[in-house]
């Protein structure tokens, strides 16, 4: 009885951990505190790419029209009444004030474009706008003069192969993001047996900490990302020490722990909503990059995309090597094989498990930061990724690091390539179906060992 009570008191420190999390994030502005209305507008600078490939020329006298709209997943769902219109000045700049923050659609009136200037992609004539509070929102229309429009169009809107190549590239980036999260989930499952549903909130936590440092404290994004990487690890390790470790000591079953992780996920998810609000926001830096670093065939690579790929691959390969070469890595694998055997060879199992939480949390944060960099940050981003991460881990095999990486890449590429045949809004369905089919025929995954299915 005495031990049960002690364990009970220890698990009270959960509250302590949660308060710590609250402490770190309490510094974020709540959506409402920063709310000052007024100043919302849609802005764009209309520039056309000339034939000779030199600097872009401003387009004067072209009209843009703003409508009310409903936007879902950054696609325009429906368009409502007209809000206003504006005409570009000599520098190509045009700004249309908005009645307040919200969702709008901006149309470029192509009849008002000067002779010879064309919109490169006809399907990008109307763009979605998610106007943020108190600041103008910028949109970009891709314009070109004469022959350049044709050339640019050849690059953007045509052959299946070209589209496939581009989707492949985006899929690889997305796959690395999923792979990082998947390895975080898989490491934790491997050493503790816990299917951690709070992964989705580990993701949001990492992205929000980076947002806090970059967009609120104004620290350079690279520094902010590195800080968030470590805070992600620390946050997860703190939850392990404050909650999971006492629960393990108490002998709480894995199913109970899985449900507790769901409770933790719900609590944190709505706490992040409480702090951050419903709106999606970008990081202060690198949100919009237009300068192409280089092109591989039809694929234009932005600097931030190259950075995500390079850093992502380094992190994944580093983890794989670290697990095999370093002393801690070997200890982690030993604990994953058998808790008791590892303990009897003198390994401090608790310390190893907490380290796994640290490494897992840090890797998940890296994935989250990249995801936020590539699109935007919002309180549901973890939910958007969670099931795809499960799919990746199931595909590769629960508890294997290599499997999680490969599974992540396969799911990422598959999700994007699926849009060649199905509507973009259904792209996740394919990945989830793949997961179910894998479970049907090879439940241990591609790289998993059969005994893991129990």
């Amino acid at each position, binding site marked *: 009885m005495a031990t049960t009570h002690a364990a*009970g008191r220890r*698990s009270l420190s*959960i509250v302590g951990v949660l308060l710590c999390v609250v402490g770190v994030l309490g510094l974020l502005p*709540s*959506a*409402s*505190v920063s709310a000052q209305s007024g100043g919302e507008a849609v802005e764009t600078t209309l520039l056309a790419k000339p034939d000779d490939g030199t600097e872009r020329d401003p387009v004067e006298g072209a009209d843009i029209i703003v409508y009310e709209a409903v936007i*879902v997943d950054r696609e325009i*769902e429906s368009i409502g009444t007209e809000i206003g219109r504006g005409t570009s000045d000599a520098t190509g700049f045009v700004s249309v004030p908005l009645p307040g923050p919200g969702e709008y659609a901006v149309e470029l009136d192509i009849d008002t474009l000067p002779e010879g200037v064309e919109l490169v992609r006809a399907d990008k004539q109307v763009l979605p706008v998610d106007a943020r509070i108190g600041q103008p929102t910028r949109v970009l229309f891709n314009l070109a003069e004469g022959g350049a429009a044709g050339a640019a169009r050849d690059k953007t809107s045509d052959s299946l192969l070209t589209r496939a190549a581009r989707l492949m590239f985006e899929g690889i980036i997305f796959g690395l993001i999923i792979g990082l999260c998947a390895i975080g989930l898989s490491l934790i499952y491997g050493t503790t*047996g816990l*299917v951690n549903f709070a992964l989705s909130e580990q993701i949001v936590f990492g992205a929000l900490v980076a947002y806090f440092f970059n967009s609120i404290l104004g620290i350079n994004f690279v520094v902010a990302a590195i800080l968030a990487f470590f805070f992600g690890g620390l946050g997860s390790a703190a939850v392990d020490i404050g909650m999971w470790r006492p*629960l393990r000591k108490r*002998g*709480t*079953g*894995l*199913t*109970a722990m*899985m*449900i*507790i992780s*769901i*409770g*933790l*996920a*719900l*609590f*944190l*998810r*709505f*706490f992040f*909503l*409480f702090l951050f609000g419903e709106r999606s926001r970008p990081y202060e830096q690198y949100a919009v990059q237009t300068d192409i670093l280089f092109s591989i065939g039809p694929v234009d690579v932005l600097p931030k995309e190259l950075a995500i790929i390079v850093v992502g691959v380094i992190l994944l390969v580093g983890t794989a090597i670290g697990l095999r070469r370093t002393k801690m890595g070997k200890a982690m694998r030993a604990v994953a094989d058998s808790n008791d055997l590892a303990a009897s060879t003198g390994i401090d199992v608790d310390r190893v498990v907490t380290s796994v939480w640290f490494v897992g949390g840090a890797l998940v944060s890296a994935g989250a930061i990249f995801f936020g960099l590539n699109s935007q940050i919002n309180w549901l981003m973890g*939910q958007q990724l969670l*099931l795809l991460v*499960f*799919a990746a881990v*199931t595909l590769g095999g629960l508890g294997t690091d290599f499997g999680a990486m490969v599974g992540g890449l396969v799911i990422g590429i598959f999700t994007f390539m699926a849009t060649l045949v199905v*509507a973009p*809004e*259904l792209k*996740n*369905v394919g990945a*989830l*179906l793949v*997961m*179910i089919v894998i*479970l*049907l025929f090879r*439940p241990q995954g591609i790289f998993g060992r059969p005994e893991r*299915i*129990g």
Partner: protein
Amino acid sequence: MDWNSIISNSFRSGISQQAIIFALAAIGLNLHFGYTGLLNFGQVAFMAVGAYGVGITTNTLGAPLWVGIIVGLLAGVVLGILLGLPTLRLKADYLAIVTIAVGEIIRLIVRAAVLSDTTGGSNGINGFANSFQNWNPFNNTGTYGFRLFDRLNLEFSGADLWELTVGWTLVLLSVFVVWRLVKSPWGRVLRSIREDEDAATALGKDVFRFKMQSLILGGSFGTLAGIFYAVQQNSVQPDNYATQQTFFALTAAILGGLATIWGPVIGSMLFWIILSFTENVLIELIDNDIMPDAIMERSQVGPVRFMLVGLTLMLLMIFRPQGIFGDKREIAIDARK
């Protein structure tokens, strides 16, 4: 602080249509998890299939409402079979992951714009269940009930009273069915599967068949919840069927007590009483300027009450997994390692 309205609103939430929907879904989850040890994290898939079964049959195909209700129930049975076939032979975690994935797949498909001719896309389907109110024996526009001691507001519109009568009748019937079943030999087999699957197999029981029956039956209560939701709202909205609904219903079931007859029902009532009480108190505090805006605004009340749900689920599982009425030895959470 207007305590009369806070208490009235909380009480009314406890017997509201929402509580009925949660009670039905939780009765199903209780049969799955409480009695059989099956981890169904996709109860919302059954709800969605029931709701859309009614909506599509009546609205898109133009059939009468009672046909739609039967189609909805059958669709739930089909879903149970499809879910069970690949997963019931595997470890519990896999059923959990597949069911949660199927729930999300269904939501994504019904809200897809490409299928909006059939499912209404993100707008859902509306106005297909008018005949439900045509069957109402009460006066639709009248008011029934009274105010207890001039304080507790127990007045309901005729339409509400009809919905509540039908809903709570369904809940009572479901409780009766579960009670008869779990007291039968069939129920004892379910419990033996929960305690030790291998032992049940060794005694010659076809474990897979019993698990499948439990999944289908428990899912049918979820389907019934979805159908009631759709008919009562006269509308189906895809985003009402997000994955977290299952976890809310699970919280309600655990709160009342798993593997008990009345646990899920009492749990659902309490769940809504607590949610409504928190919401009403916070709103009163904010409106009376007791709570400074710097800490919380009205728009933040919603998130806070769901934070409370998460916290409740965590604390219950840590400190009192048997909930209010449950027996700790009956909870299938520590045996499974």
